[in-house]
């Protein structure tokens, strides 16, 4: 089975989710749960660090799509940081860079919430 895990770090009103391993149709529900928990807690300022993410399929991209509307309606955002070139390519093929902000570091992404 594919390895995947999510680590959460709250930093003031911004939450950083570190997604590690393989994000596919099997592991996407885990990522979905993590985002869903944040929405329930009304934490809408979210940075997803993909530094440790080795693989993403459209099921993983779908999770980003599933929450962005609600997050933005609540004056928040999902910003993506430290994505590897090969994972970014998948985002890019589907046109995500026009909808999501990508940053080289968590700090840079967090700054944007201030």
């Amino acid at each position, binding site marked *: *089975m*594919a390895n995947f895990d999510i680590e959460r770090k709250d930093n003031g009103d911004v939450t950083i989710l570190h997604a590690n391993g*393989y994000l*596919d*149709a*099997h592991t996407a529900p885990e990522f979905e749960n993590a985002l869903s928990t944040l929405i329930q807690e009304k934490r809408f300022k979210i940075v997803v660090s993909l530094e440790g993410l080795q*693989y993403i*399929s*459209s*099921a993983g*991209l*779908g*999770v980003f*799509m*599933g929450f*962005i*509307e609600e997050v933005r309606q609540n004056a928040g955002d999902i910003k993506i940081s430290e994505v590897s070139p*090969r994972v970014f390519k*998948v985002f890019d*093929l*589907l*046109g*995500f860079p*026009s*909808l999501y902000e990508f940053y080289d570091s968590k700090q840079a992404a967090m700054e944007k919430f201030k």
Partner: protein
Amino acid sequence: MPGKKPHTLPEKKNSYRLKLPADSANLDIIRKFIAGIAENMGFSEEDIYQIELAVDEACANVIKHAYIGENTREKEIHVRVKTRAKKIEITIADRGIGFNPNSIKTPNMEEYLKRMKPGGLGLHLIKTLMDKVSFRINPGVRNEVKMSKSLVK
């Protein structure tokens, strides 16, 4: 003894098969199977990643859609890989309900992103990542997605 020698060596062909339950937990096994073959053929890391992703998307579609409402028959995915010196051809097959490939249009990504709803991206990715994609649909009997990629373009 045969009297004539061929002028050129015949192209080396190989065939590999994997049959497994249509369960998302098996996507990882399928990716490793495909990656191993592509790596042995000499595909670049980038190409291997793309082939893995295309096959993952096709299998994820089978797992999610092919056997809806079915409880009696075995829910299986068949993965067949044929290789030549410079080409990999992968067929993903199931015995599920099938689909109409013509009804699945390449999404207009701008429109898609405006709608901001998940789903429907798999087939678009497969077509983008592979050189050639074709379908053969025979609901309940055998539905196939066949895709290929060449080593040197």
